[in-house]
Every structure is written in C-alpha cells, then in structure tokens.
C-alpha cells in the first residue's frame, strides 16, 4: 500500500469516525431533551376520572374551555390516547378545537391486573356512556359529536346504536366492521392464539404480546436488526425532527396490556368466522344492540395502505349502516390520523361535524 493510499484510507476512517460520533451526539441530545412524549400536545383539564380512565377537556390559549359544539374523541383502549393529540401543529383533536369545537378526549389509561375482567359492556355501556353523559352535563348539549379511532370506533359505533339520541354525528376512523375480510390485526391475532383467550378466566394480555401481533403485520421492518438499522440511518436528521419521531415512536412502541375478557369477547363476536357486526345485531352485556338504530350522520374513513384495519373491512359499514358516508384516504392506519398529510382528514372531519343535520344528508 502506497503512502497516498494509506493516507486516503486514514482520512476515510477519520470521516467515518466523525459521522458515527455525530450520530451518537445527536442521539444523546434527543434522549436528554424534553418533548411531548406520552402526553397530549394541547393544554387540557381532567374533567372526570373512573378506574384508569381520564376524560380530558382541551383548553384554549387562555386556559379556558371552548364553547362550541362538543366533540368527544374515543381512541382505542389498547393503545395510548395521545395519537389524536400528538404534537403542537400536528394534533387532530387540537385542529378540531381550533375550529371552535369544545373537544373532549378519553384516555383509557393503562389496564392493570383487575381490569382483565373488563368486557364490552364495561367499555360501551360503562366508560363511554358515562363519558358522553359527563360531556353532555358540562356542555348542556344532549346530543354530542363522537369521533372513534380504530377499536375506539367500534366502541363508538356500538354506543351510538345503544344511545342514538345522544350522538349528533359519528365519525369512525379506520374502524373494522367486517371481520371476515382477511388481513389486519384481527387475523394476525387469530393466527397467533387469540382464539385461546378465555372469557371466564381472563388474563391481562401483556403489552409485549399485543405488540407482537402488530409487529407481525410487517415482520421485516419490525425485526431488531431492521429497527436498529432504521434508527441509525435516522440519526442524520436534525434533532427537532428526531424529537417528533420520538413522539411517534413513544406512541407506536408504548402498547398497553389488554383486558383478556374484552379481547375474547370481541374475537368471539366480531372475529373471523363470527363477524357479528355484519349481522347488524350484537349482544352487549344483557342487551341486544341493533345497528339499524344508528340513524345520525356517519362518516367512516379508511386508509388505502392500512395493514391493521384493511380498507375493505372498514368500508363494509355501508352494508350495516347504509347512509354512512365512506371516505378512503391514501396512507396507513396511523398516518392518516397523525402523519404529515393528516391535515386533510382533520379538515374533512371538521367540515363533516360542522354541517348541520339534514343539510348534507337529507336526514
């Protein structure tokens, strides 16, 4: 090896060392600086607590509740609530609030051991019903707007069928109704043993197990090597961008444990081969719920590249709620709600909620 070659190699090594160190310095900066990690971006007040649930009311710049028509966001109880209020300027709930609505968000919290006995009735006829009543009481509006995301949409749909007079407008985001459509989290969980969950002797399904179902939807990108490699590449990004990435990672990776009874019941009623929602009649606790009772305007939004809730399974809502307006957007399950192009959905939701009854739907 000549002296010049040796020198070039040493220069290259030095540059490699510098780049690697710069990445580690940036990682250190991101890991030690504050951000919106696990908390909503918009100022809020807790207006009701029950078990692990917190009902949040978003506040304006002066720290006061808004006085527009009330909207209740119902996120999925198996993940953290702040996906609908991710970052300043990137918050679905914040956008709706900025449009003048009085926005409430349910935070179901993190279930602990005793919550494994929670079933559909506990969520739909308990937590969601009481949250709606509290919103009605606080705002004086008997029929409020409800926006349900993913499994939270399923709870919202069932609630709206049970208490249709209390829901003015219903928005369902990536809410799967046809359990026979292959793919998605239901089928993965089915293949990975969800059928073995017991209703009578439920367990608290560990977060790692729930997460493994989601990871199976994209096994390559979710492998340890794939994740580490992806993070190493991202460390070239500016620190501010990485903090946003960290906020999203905190949502994606902070899956909460799931009540085994709820999962068992949903699988037995709505899962592959059962498909109870598509029959239009569902038993919740000791009551029969007829989805035909859902007569308020409904907007159902699916995502073209949704691996968790395949769009065909979401759009099938028109078979059980024929007047539902269906909207399919480009993007994935999370991206359409909190991604960089999510503002289109937020504004579409505002427009839908702002349309008075009968104007757009002839009801």
């Amino acid at each position, binding site marked *: 090896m000549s002296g010049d070659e040796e*020198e070039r190699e*040493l*220069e290259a090594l030095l540059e490699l*060392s510098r780049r690697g160190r710069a990445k*580690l*310095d940036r*990682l*250190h900066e991101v*890991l030690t600086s504050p951000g919106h990690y696990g908390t909503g971006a918009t100022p809020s007040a807790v207006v*009701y607590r029950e*078990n692990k649930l917190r009902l949040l009311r978003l506040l304006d710049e002066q720290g006061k509740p808004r*006085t527009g*028509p009330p909207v209740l966001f119902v996120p999925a109880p198996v993940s953290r609530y702040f996906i609908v209020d991710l970052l300043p300027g990137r918050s679905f709930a914040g956008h709706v609030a900025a*449009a003048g*609505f009085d926005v409430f968000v349910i935070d179901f919290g993190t279930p602990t*051991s*005793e*919550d*494994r*006995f929670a079933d559909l009735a*506990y969520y739909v006829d*308990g937590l969601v019903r009481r949250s709606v*009543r*509290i919103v*009605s*009481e606080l*705002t*004086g*509006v*008997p*029929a409020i707007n409800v926006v349900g995301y993913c499994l939270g949409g399923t709870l919202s749909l069932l609630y709206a*069928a*049970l*208490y249709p*007079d209390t829901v003015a407008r219903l928005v369902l985001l990536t809410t799967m109704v046809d359990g026979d459509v292959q793919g998605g989290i239901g089928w993965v969980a089915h293949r990975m043993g969800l059928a073995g969950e*017991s*209703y*009578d002797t439920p*367990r608290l*399904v560990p977060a*790692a*197990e729930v*997460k493994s179902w989601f990871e199976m939807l994209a096994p390559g990108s979710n492998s340890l090597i794939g994740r580490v*490699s992806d*993070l190493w590449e991202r460390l070239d990004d500016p620190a501010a961008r990485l903090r946003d990435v960290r906020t999203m990672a*905190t949502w994606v*990776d*902070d899956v909460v444990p799931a009540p085994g009874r709820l999962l068992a019941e949903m699988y*037995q009623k709505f899962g592959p081969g059962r498909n109870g929602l598509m029959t239009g009649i569902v*038993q919740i606790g*000791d*009551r*029969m*719920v*007829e989805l035909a009772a859902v007569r308020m305007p409904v907007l159902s939004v699916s995502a073209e590249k949704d691996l968790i809730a395949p769009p065909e399974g979401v759009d099938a809502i028109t078979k059980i709620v024929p007047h539902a307006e269906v909207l399919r957007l480009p993007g994935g399950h999370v991206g359409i709600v909190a991604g960089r192009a999510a503002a289109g959905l937020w504004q579409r939701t*505002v427009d839908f909620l*702002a*349309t008075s*009854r009968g*104007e757009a739907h002839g009801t």
Partner: protein
Amino acid sequence: MTLTADGKTAKDSTLVERWLEDQRDWQRTAMAYLDSMVKNEDFLVHLGNAMRGSLLAGKPYPAAAPAGQPAAQEAPADDRLDQVLFALHQIQGQLTDLRLVLDDVRSSGKGSPSVRPATRRKAKATKRTKRTKRPAPTVARKARPGKPRSRG
C-alpha cells in the same frame, strides 16, 4: 509514520492532529453519556430502548417475559382480590350514574334541564348541530330470553 522536514510530513502531522482531536471528541461524547447515566436514571432505560432501535420514552421497550417466567401471562390462580377490585370500579361507575341522575332531577326541578343552548356558540364557519331533547336512555331491547351469552 516517519517524520521528515518535507511537505509530506506537514500533511501527516495534520492528520495526526485531527486524529487526536477526534479521540478527544470521542472522550467528550463518552463522558456526556456517562454523565447522563449518573445524573438521570431514566437515561439508561432510554439508551436501552435505542439499542433495540426504539426511541420510546418513559418506559422500557415492551419485552416478553424471559423463559421460565411465564407467570405474568397466566391468569392468577386466586383472582378473588382482583374480582373485588374490579367490582369496586364498577360500583364507582354506578355511583357516577346515580350522581348524574340526581343532577338531572335537580335541574328539572328548577324548571330547566341541564341544556344550555343559549350559552353555546357556533364553531368557526359552521352551522350549529341541531339539538334535541334530553337523551332517551336507550332504544335497545333486552336480550332475547333463552339466548346464551357468548363466552369462551
């Protein structure tokens, strides 16, 4: 490397100096990490998550229980305490229901329901959602007698 008085030597010196500077930078990086490990107990958790490719903040990356420790995934052998705790949560909800009904009764007694339409304003560029009377409790009907509840 040989140090001589020609131009090559000067170049080599520069490289050596930069290499030494790089080593000092690495020491600073290492010290910054060590300092955070000592001063911030969460930092190790966050660093551990990063080594698993996740920027998850606030808690360790969810991991399955190690082999030989399946207890966390099993239903406890004696779940009576948890059943009592969960029943208490349900009672808490029922008490809220009672409180809400009492509030309703109180507001009805004052001649006005808890509806306050006059105080609500429209959302920006919106028309107000039509309001209805106080919510009817349900349109659902009772479960059909004899139909067994679906359980696993």
